[in-house]
């Protein structure tokens, strides 16, 4: 019974869960308003492109997306187990890989802005 390396996945999960809790609701509210046809000024191309154009904006967007992806992946892994899907190693690999690919993709897109 050796000590586990779970902290590697749990610490970012905890950080991501905090980021999701603080940031995602208001972001969803913005896209929900856009979906209803009332696009907030901040989601217009000019303003958003300007925000994502500067270094701090990139960092914030990357941090929110990457940590939220990771946290959701970890929670989804545990949820699969709770739903009876016992192939934990396979599920973990697929989900964490998806989170990593999503994070790398975000970084690449942000760097292009």
């Amino acid at each position, binding site marked *: 019974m050796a000590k586990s390396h779970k902290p590697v996945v749990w610490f970012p999960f905890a950080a991501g869960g905090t980021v*999701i809790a*603080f940031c995602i609701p208001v972001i969803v509210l913005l896209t*929900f308003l856009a979906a209803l*046809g009332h696009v907030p000024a901040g989601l217009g191309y000019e303003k958003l492109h300007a925000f994502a154009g500067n270094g701090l904006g990139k960092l914030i967007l990357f941090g929110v997306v990457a940590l939220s992806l990771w946290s*959701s992946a970890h929670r989804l892994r545990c*949820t699969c187990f709770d739903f009876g899907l016992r192939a934990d190693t396979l599920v973990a690999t697929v989900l964490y890989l998806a989170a990593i690919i999503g994070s790398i993709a975000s970084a690449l897109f942000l760097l292009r802005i």
Partner: protein
Amino acid sequence: MSRRPLVREVPPTTWYFRHPRYLRYMSREITSIFIGAYCVLLVVGLQRLSAGPAAWEGFLAALRSPASVVFQFLCLVAAVYHAATWFNATQKAMPLQIGEDFVPGNVISGAHYAAWVVLSVVVLLLAGVF
């Protein structure tokens, strides 16, 4: 000393129907499906943003489809539920002892809610919602 103990199996796929608190737990966990899917949407959004104004307008237009409206609403519910359960849980992980007493848990959660509201209002202001 057990002669022949009776072992009661836990049904691995339906155990959470046995008690309302398990259903509450599973609803909290299921928010990760919506939030995960929403994050994928955000990644797509970033790609559209990086591809120019026409691509971005296309993204905003796609958001207006009926399916998207429903999805956005469900994600909003999931995100708020996640936030509430997360803030309520945080007080358990960070006990604050002052002398012989502990800061009440709902003060710690309350501080999180307050910060959340302030941050959200600031973001909405910066985004020109009001």
